[in-house]
């Protein structure tokens, strides 16, 4: 009897916008698995609330992929194909998340200036808030234990333990289970491990980066302890881990050695970098269309501290103050995230820079394709990356990139990209100015990129996942 390969599509089923980053990895793999006429392929999802793996029909996977491509809300899986039927209950949302949602809704009613202050006030007190939630839980537990004692002194923290199994997973011995999604949010590796011990199937997981552990300060709140637990559990569960760069592989190996977990075999997968090109006839948004008559460079990324938009802002202020003429507009493509409220405020209030920096949010595939075609070059000064898709996409679009020299980025851009220390402000200002003054050099670099760069396809990436899974069946 042949072994089955199960691809977990939980993240894809829960996504209803265009696929980016991790979602794209899972969705592209699902698409390949659906359409490449591969044998013994099945799909599943994980119900976190009930701790159950459920089979998902090929039809439901296709619908979810279509939804993502169209950027519309996902439709619920067909009940008839699910084993057992998908639960009607809404997805589990923690008390922290529920309170956070309410607070954010309330803050959104405030005027913008007051909203930023309120967000800053709230985020500064996040630890206090979490402590209050923990205290509430402890008090609730204390009351429960007082009224109906369980007979054993509980541990001070809330220990999840192993969940009550309602329905065994659909996997059988020596099957391969693959999960490539937002597992720290949507999966329970402790449950996966206990099921793996019972059934003895094999597990293929992925590591995108260990930045939440390595550079916790670049995230919202104290995430390192939570992610350390996630990575430790990943190490115990996985028969093999796909790492998206040699850098990530090195980082993960060092972390697991420090945590004392087993170190599973790891292989490096090269992610696809084909742009989701829109139809060239698509209507451009007015914001993007307004760039048609001007020169611009761009940084494609969520606006957050780690991406280091700030160094570009500061470099631009230097160029402006130096009196450099004909500075291309710097376009930030991406939505604002955490930790950049002061930068956003500076960008809004700094009269020197307002004419030179533009922010584009909710950019469609068509708009993005146009931006890549028409940008002078791209910039990517990130402080740390697990891979660096924007650099790969830039090269795939035939565009030169000025990138930071950290982490995995030199793996992505090889010698087709110029690298700068992300903290070296004079160097950024100097190199930007130099390239503004030397369009012929950019043209030369673009020619070299066209000749030498071979963009990885998502099909190749998905095929790598499949081949790795197949090799696991032979172990």
């Amino acid at each position: 009897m042949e072994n089955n390969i199960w691809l977990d599509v939980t993240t894809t089923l829960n996504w209803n916008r265009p696929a980016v980053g991790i979602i794209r990895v899972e969705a592209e793999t699902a698409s390949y698995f659906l359409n490449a006429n591969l044998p013994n392929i099945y799909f599943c999802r994980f119900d976190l609330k009930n701790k159950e793996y459920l089979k998902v029909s090929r039809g439901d996977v296709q619908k979810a992929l279509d939804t993502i491509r169209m950027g519309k809300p996902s439709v619920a899986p067909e009940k008839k194909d699910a084993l057992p039927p998908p639960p009607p209950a809404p997805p589990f949302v923690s008390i922290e998340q529920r309170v956070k949602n309410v607070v954010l809704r309330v803050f959104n009613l405030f005027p913008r200036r007051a909203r930023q202050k309120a967000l800053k006030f709230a985020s500064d007190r996040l630890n206090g808030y979490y402590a209050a939630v923990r205290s509430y839980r402890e008090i609730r537990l204390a009351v429960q234990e007082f009224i109906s004692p369980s007979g054993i002194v509980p541990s001070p923290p809330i220990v999840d333990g192993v969940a009550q199994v309602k329905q065994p997973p659909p996997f059988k011995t020596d099957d391969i289970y693959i999960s490539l999604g937002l597992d720290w949010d949507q999966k329970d590796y402790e449950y996966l491990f206990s099921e793996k011990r019972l059934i003895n199937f094999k597990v293929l997981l992925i590591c995108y980066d260990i930045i939440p552990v390595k550079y916790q300060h670049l995230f919202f709140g104290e995430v390192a302890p939570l992610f350390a637990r996630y990575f430790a559990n990943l190490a115990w569960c996985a028969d093999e881990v796909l790492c998206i760069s040699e850098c990530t592989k090195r980082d993960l190996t060092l972390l697991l050695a420090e945590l004392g977990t087993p170190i599973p075999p790891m292989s490096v997968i090269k992610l696809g970098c084909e742009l989701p090109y829109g139809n060239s006839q698509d209507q451009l948004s007015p914001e993007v269309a307004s760039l048609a008559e001007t020169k611009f460079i761009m940084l494609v990324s969520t606006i957050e501290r780690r991406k280091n938009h700030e160094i570009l802002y500061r470099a631009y202020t230097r160029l402006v103050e130096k009196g450099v003429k004909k500075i291309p507009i710097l376009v930030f493509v991406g939505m604002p995230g955490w930790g950049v409220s002061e930068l956003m405020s500076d960008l809004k209030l700094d009269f020197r820079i307002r004419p030179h920096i533009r922010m584009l949010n909710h950019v469609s595939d068509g708009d993005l394709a146009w931006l890549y075609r028409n940008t002078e070059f791209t910039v990517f000064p990130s402080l740390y990356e697990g891979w660096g898709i924007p650099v790969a996409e830039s090269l795939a679009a035939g565009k030169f990139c000025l990138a930071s020299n950290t982490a995995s980025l030199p793996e992505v851009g090889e010698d087709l990209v110029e690298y700068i220390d992300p903290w070296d402000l004079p160097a950024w200002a100097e190199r930007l100015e130099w390239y503004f003054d030397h369009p012929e050099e950019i043209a030369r670099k673009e020619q070299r990129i066209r000749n030498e760069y071979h963009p990885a396809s998502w099909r190749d990436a998905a095929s790598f996942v499949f081949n790795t899974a197949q090799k696991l069946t032979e172990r």
Partner: protein
Amino acid sequence: MKPVVLLLSTYPYVKPQHGGQIRLANIAKAYKSAGWHVENIAIFPVNGYPKESLGPNDLPFPVTQEWRRFKGRKIPLIDDLLSGMYAASNSGGFPFILERLPQHINVIHVEQPWLWPLAVKIKGLLAYQNVRLVYGSQNIETPLKKDILDSFNIDDCADALEAIELLEKQAVQEADICFAVTEADRKTLLEFGAKKACLASNGINPWQANPDDLERWKQKLPTAPWILYVASAHPPNFTGFGRVVGDSLGFIPPDSRLVVAGSVSEHIYHAAVKTRWSSLNISRLQLLHTISNDDLAAVKSLAHAFLLPIPHGGGSNIKTAEAIYSGAYCVGTTSAFRGYENFAVLPEVMTADTPFEYQRIIKDVLQQPFPLRGNKDELRQTLSWDRCLASIPENVLSFVRDNHGK
């Protein structure tokens, strides 16, 4: 008439919980089994023990400032030393003790050196001038105390350590017989000037768990193999935990746990959460705190492995003897197996002296089947208290007979 032995200690032994109490209770049992009449006086810390665990002659060491200061200074963690001064003082506990002394005493057995001044004071009384003194060493106390004080960053205590060293050597040199818990300690006592030093190892009381307790605990403990750490809140049991085992408990599989029983639980929790890996560590801990002896018997019977992270010190660890006796895997430091070196031949006994070794071995044993039963069972039987302590009344009686009238 039965010979009479008076046991002096800084803890009661009516309901023994920690290692010192368990040893003392078994020493009393050994004397009784050999035909001795046993009396006991304990100078115990106020609030340290529940009422029901106290004997009729036990005396609390008061919290008054006067007795809690060493040379006018407040130095933490030396109450045992101070309680000896209190017990031997006419303005302290001595008048109370005097009222409770039996009319006739053949031997005063002082367990640990702290109450040695009291024994000397009693022997100084005309009625007890022929009493023989026995020193029961549980450890080489001075370096152990220094380690404890150092681990809590307590400075300005050199003179207290000097006093402890003098007291310990005084006990060793003045005792008619000394008993040590390990061969290494026995040699040290001889180097200190002991007239006679014998070995009386720490042992175990063979336990048999109740089937109902076993079933109940099976429901509460992980189904996957897990590792047990049983210990009291004695500082060496937790101050070096991170240094011995490492900061992360990631070496424990996700469905397993480090199960901690005893009053050390809270301290292990604090040691585990203060690291960068708090969430991971908490997910791998199951704290049972202090549980009854019946419950502990069930928990020990279900353990797949025992953790023995003793970082330093002399003496030997009763928990080590229990772990070896269980037949489960025992993973411990070289220090933890001190006194039980001859059990190293058992395949399930494993020594680790670095966090890396600890983690590697525990990772491995938690994925192995339980060790085969029946292997070297006869060797394990030698661990019982009866066999370990039989030498105490034998040697003491023989000494008393040989030196009668001297």
